[in-house]
């Protein structure tokens, strides 16, 4: 009898062009390569310098998301790019894509959006695939039962030139979440609780498989939120086995298989889940019913607590430095703390279900005076859908900004940024020092918690506003 294999084992084995040896890493085939303007320019330059071509242009898809403005378009329907460096980066991506025959969802096109939002929504992201991108949140795509991870620019050039990567086999970790989430507790709270337990480096060297009844009960968009932040625990990737929720999400998407191909694909995808008896290098268990809405208090995503908890006492100099930067006192609760900005968006929480959740809080309420609330859809398609549902009106009538699709204030390299000292509640994925603008201070939380902060002007338990 063959040894039971995990989802990861199956994906790894089926993509080996050349197995790992004592002297060389494995050569792993990459099915889908996503690129954007910030981490690809040098890779194309190196290809040109060496006279190389792109081996499989049809397996690479490009978009513009990181350095683009998300300010509403002008009356002429055009985007205004004020930053010359960003403009050069964008035009270079367009030129590179044209020269090497790569499909590009450029700024202004219907398909444009955050790379980890458009892959799934187009149906490019599929179970059983290996997917890479020069972006650490590529782990998002693991929600479909794909092996998806972030790479550097050198590796971007490797994939462009050979469609392969040199990789050493990582370890596996099972994170099992059983039971039912209580009302007002979301996928974002699951992953923030996981990272708080593992710590920001706790997953290093591992690929995580999220399993258990609470994970199975999540929608695809919620699973993406969970997998997205795997890297914030240091994990190489995060994944969820494909099931009917996955197939239902993908059916009929423009780039998903169609007709007889679809039936064949689903049959193959059904064989992907980890076999009964398959073992992991490490296992962690969580009880969904015990989870609270989560919020971070420090300067890395592992510094998270339940919304009603007090800021913990610092255990070392690093934590002391974090509390100093955040201007917080140990032993005091975060609830009631006044905030300046609310950012709802990013590859973690900018999909239609995230916006619908935020809208339940904004509806019939006003953004607190003195607070800036930004709602940034993850893609042009999400934006269009939200507008068709009237969500844009809900946000605008509440006094929030309704912006164009992009990474926006999650990375603050596009004009959207905090001022020094400002406090933000953000649905994004990183609260590092200055991440959302030099000197800015970030509390990470769910769309519900962020929206509740927007309308009250303080850190608030959203369950007090929506039942």
């Amino acid at each position, binding site marked *: 009898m063959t040894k039971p294999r995990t989802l990861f084992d199956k994906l790894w084995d089926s993509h080996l*062009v*050349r197995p790992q040896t*004592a*002297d*060389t*890493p494995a*050569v792993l*085939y990459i099915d889908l390569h996503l690129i954007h303007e*910030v*981490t690809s*320019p*040098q890779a194309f*330059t190196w290809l040109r310098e060496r006279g*190389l071509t792109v*081996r499989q242009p049809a397996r690479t898809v490009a978009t513009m998301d*990181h*350095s683009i403005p998300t300010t509403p378009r002008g009356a002429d329907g055009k985007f205004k790019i004020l930053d010359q*460096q960003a403009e*050069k*980066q964008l035009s270079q991506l367009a030129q590179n894509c044209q020269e090497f025959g790569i499909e590009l969802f450029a700024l202004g096109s219907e398909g444009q959006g955050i790379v980890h939002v458009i892959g799934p929504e187009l149906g490019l992201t599929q179970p059983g695939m290996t997917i890479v991108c*020069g*972006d*650490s949140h590529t782990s998002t795509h693991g929600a479909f039962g794909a092996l998806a991870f*972030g*790479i*550097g*620019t*050198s*590796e971007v*050039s*490797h994939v462009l*030139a*050979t*469609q*392969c990567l*040199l990789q*050493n086999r990582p370890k596996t970790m099972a994170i099992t979440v059983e039971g039912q989430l209580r009302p007002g507790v979301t996928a974002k709270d699951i992953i923030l609780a996981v990272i708080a337990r593992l710590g*920001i*480096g706790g997953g*290093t*060297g591992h690929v995580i498989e999220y399993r258990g009844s609470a994970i199975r009960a999540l929608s695809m968009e919620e699973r993406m939120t969970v997998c997205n932040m795997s*890297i914030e625990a*240091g994990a*190489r990737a995060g994944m969820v086995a494909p099931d009917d929720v996955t197939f239902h999400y993908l059916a009929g998407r423009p780039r998903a298989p169609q007709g007889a191909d679809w039936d064949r694909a689903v049959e193959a995808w059904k064989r992907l889940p980890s076999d009964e008896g398959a073992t992991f290098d490490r296992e962690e268990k969580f009880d969904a019913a015990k989870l609270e809405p989560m919020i971070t208090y420090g300067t*890395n995503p592992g510094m998270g607590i339940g919304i009603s908890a007090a800021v913990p006492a610092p255990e*070392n*100099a*690093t934590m002391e*430095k974090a509390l100093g930067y955040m201007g917080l006192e140990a032993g005091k609760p975060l609830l009631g703390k006044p905030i300046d900005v609310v950012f709802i968006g990013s590859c973690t929480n900018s999909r239609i279900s995230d916006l619908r959740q935020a809208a339940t809080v904004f509806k019939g309420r006003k953004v607190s005076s003195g607070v800036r609330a930004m709602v940034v859809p993850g893609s042009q398609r999400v934006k269009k859908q939200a507008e068709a549902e009237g969500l844009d009106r809900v946000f605008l009538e509440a006094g929030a900004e309704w912006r164009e699709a992009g990474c926006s204030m999650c*990375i*603050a*390299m596009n004009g959207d940024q905090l001022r*020094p000292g400002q406090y933000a509640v953000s649905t994004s994925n*990183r609260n*590092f*020092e*200055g*991440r959302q603008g*030099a*000197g800015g201070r970030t509390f990470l939380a769910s769309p519900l918690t962020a929206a509740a902060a927007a309308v009250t002007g303080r850190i608030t338990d959203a369950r007090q506003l929506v039942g």
Partner: protein
Amino acid sequence: MEPIRTFETKTVVLPIENVDTDQIIPARFLKVTSKVGIGAHLFADWRYDGAGQEKSDFILNKPEAKGAAVLVAGDNFGCGSSREHAPWALYDYGFRAIVSTSIADIFKSNSLKNGLLPIVVDKATHAKLLAKPGMDVTVSLEKQTLSLTDGTSVKFDIDPFARYCLMNGQDELDFLLAQKEEIARYEATPR
């Protein structure tokens, strides 16, 4: 790339844990299309104040840190974003090795492709290095050792293929390009 074998240098100590790549190089400096001169932005928000003046209390701005090619940092160095700009900036500034008790995966992989050695040492060795900033050390990639002035020498792990490439100034891409027949065979196999 210049082949790396053995080098002697002094250390500079940054005793902070979880130094993320946003600290190593903030995102606003990623709007570049080359990597030339990127070391100017290394640790920008720690090195410079709001007016662009050097902060005198930051370790890299102190005279004793000049010329050090080994950065000793706290646990889990290089976590966060996959930006290769982080090792580019460290290398361009003059660093040739990072020493910590653990180093984040993507940063480690990126460093190995750019002549920057990610060296993981045990807690006791780390503590010795932290206690004596500016210590003279010898890094031997050949022997995979880090030698301290007290005469101790610790062995470090490194991916054997990355080591081979670094010692011979070779590019990992050459190896992948040489696999083109296997890759074509893989692509032709129905799955």
